[in-house]
């Protein structure tokens, strides 16, 4: 048996180290270690509750909007606010723009290099201007000792990549286009919310922007460009990868229990959210029960009491705690490790009979021969993310059409911060279920707690010793060369880990 460590595990957000035991080229055990802690929940204590949406956005530069939205939902709840139509629709537009850029960034910028050989750019023979630019750049690399050749695109692990020109070239063309397309998602967000990352316009009660026709038209134009890219490039590339790496539908299998908090207020959908809340446990659909959430700490670097519900526990960092190997806590639902993310949203939505989800998922399963159960796999996680990108891009058109213009249209409810209150804000970050819990005493934050998607997915073992979902997914991964563990890295990256979020 050999132990291999992937540290730093790059092309994700943040500081993650993954350790695996390998027997005869097969992973027999795995450990996920979050390597960064800042203490946001301690920093929030004693502050004005209005600080929360700004402070907590700084948890993550990839999905700040998700934290901003969870925070203002928690405050809406604590202050008892009715958000006007323009308020929730514009919030959705902010969140949607960030989802689109985030999913496109993950599929292309971060993940595509695991599937398509970037070294092939040097052999490109077509006339695409950007690919030609990259080819010339690759061929003209200066061999000075201080320069890493073709960094940051190379070097990479030697592995089985998509390299046949007829398949690889379109993916590479879309890969280079994606760098510019994802910018549009952020521009859409900035049009409504001022800037991105870290938007200033999200506030309790609604939003600060009074929209005008120019903003909405610009948003619509960029949304249309993204929708075309998703339809003509992203979905096609997913199919190419699915056909070339069908075994990836069986790799990275985890527990298959899913949790969804629900996202995007939508008055035309039952339950009020476009992605509805729910849990899929042991092959059964269950309604979401917030009381079932606890956080285990036995293997996490905290010496506070383990197994408590959000807002119940103190946060006491203990970097030298015996046996602890990660800064990530181990949240559990009914005591079980749960997977969150696009695959959770699609599986739960599918079983709830969500018409858009059902139609798209059925189509994809027909095209690829994949089974619903195989969303519990590395390729299933990527597929869910790509399919969801289309669902969101298409649905955003409705939210945009619902925005009303005119000085008489309110964008934000009025409020005062109460002396004592408790609020919960639930949404879905691109990476999965996100909850913010807020307790106000004497007009100040008494406690604030975030339970975050990557905390669920990349958690260490719980008090019973059960591995976190990603650790479990690594078990039985076969590796051609354990010294170049790309197969394990693929399993990890399919989760789109965000380490800054997971520990915060």
């Amino acid at each position, binding site marked *: 048996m050999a132990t291999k460590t992937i540290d730093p595990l790059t092309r994700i957000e943040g*500081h993650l180290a993954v350790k695996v035991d390998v027997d005869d080229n097969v992973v027999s055990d795995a450990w996920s270690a979050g390597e960064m802690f800042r*203490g946001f929940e301690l920093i929030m204590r*004693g502050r004005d509750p209005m600080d929360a949406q700004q402070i907590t956005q700084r948890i993550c530069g990839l999905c700040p909007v998700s934290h901003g939205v969870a925070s203002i939902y928690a405050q809406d709840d604590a202050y008892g606010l009715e958000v006007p139509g323009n308020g929730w629709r514009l919030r959705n537009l902010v969140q949607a723009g960030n989802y689109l850029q985030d999913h496109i960034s993950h599929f292309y910028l971060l993940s595509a290099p695991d599937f398509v050989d970037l070294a092939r750019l040097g052999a490109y023979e077509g006339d695409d201007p950007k690919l030609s630019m990259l080819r010339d750049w690759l061929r003209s690399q200066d061999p000075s000792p201080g320069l890493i050749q073709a960094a940051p695109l190379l070097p990479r692990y030697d592995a089985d990549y998509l390299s046949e020109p007829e398949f690889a070239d379109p993916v590479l063309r879309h890969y280079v286009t994606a760098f510019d397309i994802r910018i549009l998602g952020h521009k859409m967000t900035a049009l409504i919310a001022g800037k991105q990352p870290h938007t200033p316009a999200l506030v309790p009660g609604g939003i600060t922007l009074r929209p005008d026709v120019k903003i909405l038209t610009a948003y619509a134009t960029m949304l249309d460009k993204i929708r075309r890219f998703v339809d003509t490039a992203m979905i096609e590339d997913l199919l190419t990868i699915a056909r070339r790496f069908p075994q990836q539908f069986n790799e990275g299998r985890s527990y298959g229990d899913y949790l969804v908090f629900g996202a995007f207020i939508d008055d035309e959908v039952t339950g009020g959210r476009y992605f509805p809340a729910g849990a899929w446990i042991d092959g059964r659909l269950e309604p979401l029960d917030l009381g079932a959430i606890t956080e285990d700490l036995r293997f996490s670097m905290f010496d506070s009491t383990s197994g408590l519900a959000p807002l119940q526990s103190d946060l006491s960092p203990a970097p030298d705690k015996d046996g602890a190997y990660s800064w990530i806590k181990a949240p559990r639902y009914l005591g079980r490790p749960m997977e969150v993310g696009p695959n959770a949203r699609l599986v739960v939505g599918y079983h709830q009979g969500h018409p858009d989800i059902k139609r798209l998922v059925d189509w994809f399963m027909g095209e690829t021969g994949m089974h619903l159960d195989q969303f519990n796999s590395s390729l299933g996680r990527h597929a869910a993310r790509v399919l969801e990108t289309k669902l969101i891009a298409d649905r955003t058109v409705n939210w945009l059409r619902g925005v009303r213009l005119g000085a008489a249209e309110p964008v934000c409810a009025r409020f005062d911060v109460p002396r004592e209150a408790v609020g919960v804000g639930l949404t879905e970050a691109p990476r999965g279920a996100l909850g913010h819990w807020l307790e106000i005493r004497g007009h100040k934050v008494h406690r604030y707690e975030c339970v975050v998607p990557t905390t669920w997915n990349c958690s260490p073992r719980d008090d019973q010793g059960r591995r976190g979902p990603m650790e479990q997914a690594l078990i039985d991964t076969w590796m051609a060369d354990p010294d170049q563990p790309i197969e394990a890295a693929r399993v990890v990256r399919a989760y789109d880990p965000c380490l800054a979020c997971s520990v915060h």
Partner: protein
Amino acid sequence: MSGYTRRDFLKFGAYFGAVMGLGGAAAPTLAAALQRLTESRPPVLWLHGLACSGCTVSLLNSENPGPLELLTQHIHLNFHATLSTATGSVAIDVLEKTIAAGDYVLVVEGSIPATMPKACRVNHEPIGELVLRATRQAKQVPGADGSLQPLVVATGACAAFGGVPAAENNPTGATSVGDYLTQRGQAARVVNLPGCPVHPDWIVGTLAHVLGFGLPELDDAGRPTMFYGKTIHDQCPRFSDYESERFAEHFGDDGCLFKLGCVGPEVYADCTVRNWNGGASDCIQAGAPCIGCASQDFAREAQFPFYRMNPAFPKILAKKAEG
């Protein structure tokens, strides 16, 4: 800007060849020589401390140059944890080769957990130690006293001034990169690029200036004056509202945003004239107050005002009334 493509060099090569009477055959050699001028510029090494990667994402929002043009035609980014294809041992190999060869432009995103080294590690090494090691080998520039010192570009609020991780209650002893290096007795010329996140133009413009023209002019806080020379308030699109004392009372109102917590008079940055995300908007255009993310005081004390009246406001108004 070092905005030359290989095609440009072929063109220049042909041009110089013709000027010097060498004919077309000499052009490729000349082109190669000219191209080497840019490529022999130092590589960039980007390290992450207590960071959210927001500055990384902001870098990717750069336009003209766009991200791929930036990475391939303008800078040579040896290592960056979010962008490098290299992972695990391959990434460590790249990182160590880069540090061993030295003479790179070091960029640090995020603050340093000075009192809790385990709060941020790369391959078991506390980030503070890695940043210290990387600083010693970085490209040297004249320091404030004229002596040669390693250059460190501290990008974003956290690296420049500590940011949210260093806010009140700070459990990790998070500190800015400049303060950390001082604590460790390491001399360095630290260029601070505050902002949460950094604006793409601020980081790309600074790198381009360093690589093409040398160190830009810096103020006493190490900020390039080309970006941080004036206050938000002095460049505010709602300045006339302030002058005529039309104040927004509620979110969504027209008018100066002082009563909703704007700290623009105390913040040096050019957001309101540069705008964010390729000119899409900025905080004040979206009806939101400047929250001072480029300020040295940003979020630092629990009293720092987000969306509530800046305690300095009555004083500023009184001064205004005095004329």
